[in-house]
């Protein structure tokens, strides 16, 4: 019994954290944003450490509906640190009314908890419930922004598309259940590959994947991204763009691995979605003036690259996606950190607002440069190495032309990424703009991010080896 509690410790801790934060939401009196911030910061730091410590835990819980392996624990660790980083950059939480701050932290926590359950869930119903827990928290977070009506529109849109995706997913799951007569992934994994050529199995699989495509903003479930990115509060969007995406990648790997990699139909569908997604995302991003909207479209393109790694359906492919997920998390946090620090009163930041950043805050400019170049996939950043690994995995599977296509897309994406760098480094500062003050903790965070970005770019081997073992764990019969 105690043993099982220890296995479940990270989740239990985040549940505890949610309870503490819930206590804060109902506490009466004046809102105390600093108290809320520090409570959340300390708790999430402990949480991150606990998830780190839980790497290596293995076992099954809850009638084998819940599995702990290196894959799930690695992702839990990523999620824990992602949440910590997002809370780190929430010290200037101007975009949300002060009395809502405890709720903001509470729902971030529940959403993360949902995602942690998600990466460990190996049973369809558990998986669905976990997914919904994380999604519903986000549905509340997105419209939380104070001020304009724009955000409620974003919230409603997000909710509607999310609900449709969930419905589709449930529908698909029912097909899978109908074909395999079980909801356990382990059993599905043994039966589904033989049935993968039957219509029921394929349709079930594709419809199930649709629900995850929504999470990852894969074409055609990408429509919410630009509006949510633009309409949501900066920190909320940072969470959606990083932690939530990471969970999406994890569960996508888990489900695609079920098929055994034998279905040409599924393969072709993924290829088409990857191609259309990245092209559409990159082309539309060129035109964007708002930095968050630009990142939204770039995230649609990135979902395409991720599909490229997943559809290799090989150990290396999954491992490269895991690596990419971490690099993507760090790079996005770097971009959002700069954005949050620059934004005045929680407003959105236009690309032109970066003008002269290198004079106003040289350190931020460097972080932005690395973050943006990383997203563009330039060495020596983690973004380059991640893309490189994904492309190698795809080439090994014989998708050379697909990789070439992705490369062309990467080149297109350079255009808008470099536009951001150009604004930050070459344009003169706007009249009357003042140097941006960076507090010491923020400065440290900057250095840490820079180091991690470069480290991911230059010394991939340690982490990639772990990722390979984690990918093996997914492929092993569950």
């Amino acid at each position, binding site marked *: 019994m105690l043993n099982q509690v220890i296995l479940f410790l990270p989740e239990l801790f985040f549940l505890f954290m949610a309870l503490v934060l819930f206590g804060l939401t109902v506490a009466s009196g004046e809102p105390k944003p600093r108290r809320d911030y520090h409570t959340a910061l300390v708790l999430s730091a402990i949480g991150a450490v606990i998830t780190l410590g839980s790497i290596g835990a293995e076992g099954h819980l809850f009638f084998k509906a819940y599995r702990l392996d290196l894959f799930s624990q690695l992702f839990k660790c990523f999620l824990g640190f992602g949440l910590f980083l997002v809370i780190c950059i929430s010290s200037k939480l101007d975009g949300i009314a002060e009395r809502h701050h405890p709720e903001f932290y509470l729902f971030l926590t529940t959403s993360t908890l949902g995602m942690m359950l998600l990466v460990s869930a190996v049973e369809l119903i558990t998986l669905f419930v976990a997914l919904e827990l994380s999604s519903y928290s986000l549905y509340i977070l997105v419209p939380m922004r104070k001020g304009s009506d724009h955000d409620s*529109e974003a919230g*409603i*849109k997000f909710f*509607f*598309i999310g609900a*449709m995706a969930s419905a*589709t997913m449930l529908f698909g799951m029912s097909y899978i259940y109908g074909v395999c007569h079980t909801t356990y992934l382990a059993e599905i994994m043994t039966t589904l590959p033989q049935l993968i050529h039957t*219509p029921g199995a*394929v*349709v079930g699989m*594709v*419809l199930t994947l*649709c629900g995850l495509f929504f999470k990852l903003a894969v*074409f*055609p*479930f990408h*429509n919410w991204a*630009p*509006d949510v990115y633009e309409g949501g509060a900066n920190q909320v969007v940072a969470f959606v763009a990083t932690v939530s995406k990471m969970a999406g990648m994890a569960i996508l790997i888990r489900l695609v691995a079920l098929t055994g990699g034998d279905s040409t*139909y599924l393969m*072709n*569908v993924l290829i088409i979605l990857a191609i259309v997604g990245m092209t*559409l995302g990159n*082309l*539309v*991003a*060129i*035109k964007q003036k708002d930095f968050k909207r630009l990142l939204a479209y770039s995230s649609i393109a990135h979902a395409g690259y991720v599909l490229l790694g997943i559809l290799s359906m090989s150990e290396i492919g999954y491992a490269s996606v895991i690596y990419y997920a971490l690099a993507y998390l760090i790079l996005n946090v770097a971009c959002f950190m700069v954005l949050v620090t620059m934004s005045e009163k929680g407003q959105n930041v236009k690309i032109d607002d970066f003008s002269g950043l290198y004079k106003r805050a040289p350190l931020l400019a460097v972080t932005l440069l690395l973050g943006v170049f990383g997203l563009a996939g330039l060495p020596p950043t983690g973004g380059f190495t991640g893309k490189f690994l994904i492309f190698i995995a795809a080439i090994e599977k014989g998708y050379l032309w697909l990789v070439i296509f992705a490369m062309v897309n990467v080149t*297109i994406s350079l*255009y808008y990424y470099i536009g951001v760098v150009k604004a930050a480094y070459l344009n003169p500062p706007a009249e009357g703009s003042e140097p941006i003050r960076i507090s010491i903790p923020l400065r440290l965070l900057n250095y840490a991010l820079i180091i991690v970005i470069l480290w991911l770019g230059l010394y991939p081997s340690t982490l990639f080896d772990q990722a390979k073992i984690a990918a093996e764990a997914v492929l092993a019969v569950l």
Partner: protein
Amino acid sequence: MLDGLSFELLMAIVASMAPVLCFGLIMVFTRRSISASVTVGIIGSFLSWFASLYLFLHYFHAEEAVVFKGAWVVSASLKIPFGYYFDPHSLLMLMIVATISLVIQIYSIGYMAGDPGKSRYYAFLCLFSWSMINLVIAPGLLQLYIFWELVGVSSYLLIGFYFEKWSASEAGKKAFVMTRAGDIGFFIGIIILMLTTGHLSIAVFGNAAEVGNTGLSQALLTLSAILIFSGAVGKSAQFPLLTWLPDAMEGPTPVSALLHSATMVAAGVYLVSRIFPFYAASSTAMMVVLIIGTITMLLSSTMAMTARDIKQVWAFSTISQLGFMFMGLGAGAYFAGVFHLTTHAFFKALLFLCAGVFIHHFETNDFFEMSKAGARKMLIPMITVTIGVAALSGIPPFSGFFSKEAIMAGLAHKGNIWLIAGLLGAAMTAYYSFRVIFVMWFPKGEVEEHGHGHEGGHDDGHGGGRWAWVTEWSMLSVLLILGAITLVLGFFQKELEHFLTGHSAEHHGSQLILVLALGCALAGVILAWFEFGAKNAKQEGFLSRMKSVEALFSNRWYMDHAYRKLLDYVVYGGITNTFTRNDRVIIDGGIDGLCRFTVSLGRAVSRIQSGLLQYNLYLTFLVVALMGLYFLLV
């Protein structure tokens, strides 16, 4: 990364990393304080030298090469090691490089006294030593190549040290570009080896049996050997890439001594001798080495015969001696080439440093003027320069005699024509080097004595009264040390041969060759004596009676003119122009068009992205439906 930290490894790390640490220290911390920088630089070189000495003695009797290495890049078909590789050859070279670097740094205390850029100078010296040391002990060709290029960079910095002087910065540039030209071939050669054999380890290419096992076809082997040799041609200033070296004399004299005796230019010879079995496997490549060496040796000897600048004479003699080493290697005499490299390193450093003393004192480079100003009164430099010249000319019992003799024997083995070329070169060498000595010992015409008063004022201007002796003796002591090494090194031939090759041959060539070589050298000396030394000599070379030939020699066979023309017409006029136009019209134009197209495509696509919810959902499920349709059709 490296397996296990032992004391030997620690020493290797000290030997290889101390200089670069000093470079960093000087650049970051002590740049303001000259004396601190000098101290840091000398301590660093001393540590490096001491560690090298330890390694040299420790591994002197080692049976096999000692390797410390970690893999830097490993993939299925490719292994690139990084680390240290100690075999007799690299140990010997390491010892030479560390020693010369150290004495040059000590010497520079005096020579560079009063120069405001002294900190920068010492930093660059350290950078240079670091690159050279790591080149020498590289376990693989890629590491060797990387440090090879770093040597190029640091030599650029050192040659162009007086960058405010136009000719100096031009000379630095020229040295860099010309050596780089050869390096292109070197790099292509490395790539060929890497692609065909999958590794670049010196342990493989330096072992005759292993070279045979690499499965390299004869044609590819020859091709890559010649390509790699082109790198050596550039670095060692061989024909046709030799004109950068005389110009490189623009740097401070100790730099010339460092670059042109034991280190930078010797790197080319070192490279070929390092993978000698690899070259030996291709007779064509060996022939190329031999021919290039011979041409260079003869050409540059003629150039030295007309020069009036003492550094220029030594520069041309360096080129010709390097050519001589290549001749030895090309003729298959591995030990002779390496031995000459060793002896040459010391006596050529000696010659340059002596020249430095004179230049420092008389503030002129022209040895005719030095002579008139009373050079012969400076006894220590005069004696040491004479020792150096005797060694250079191959007069017994100085070290050069033994190594030249060994090469001659190798050449005789290869064929008489090569021996004749070698003898001719030896005669010319003796002639031009003794020309310098006789002119300096026996000044002709009115002698304007260099008064002591002037000298004193001069010293005050540089070193400052109380420390003048430091300035002076830092230079003189180094001359004495190098002079002593030059005197005795020749007698260690057998020990060195045993150390390098594992056995020592009892005899080298016949008595006849010995007599011939000595005779040629003496003939050169005697000719020089009658023209420059004897009482009523006019101090005009026989060449001055043949104006056109003299012009040809002193203009370096018009090679610089040819290169200038080549640059102007072919590179600037032809290639650059074409590429510029291509860049502007096709690439720029094409990219602009492509960008406009992409941006407008982006506009068009973004129109589909409307914010209407119903429309969005419609689009989404349309795609899902299409997926279903596709499934039905397939």
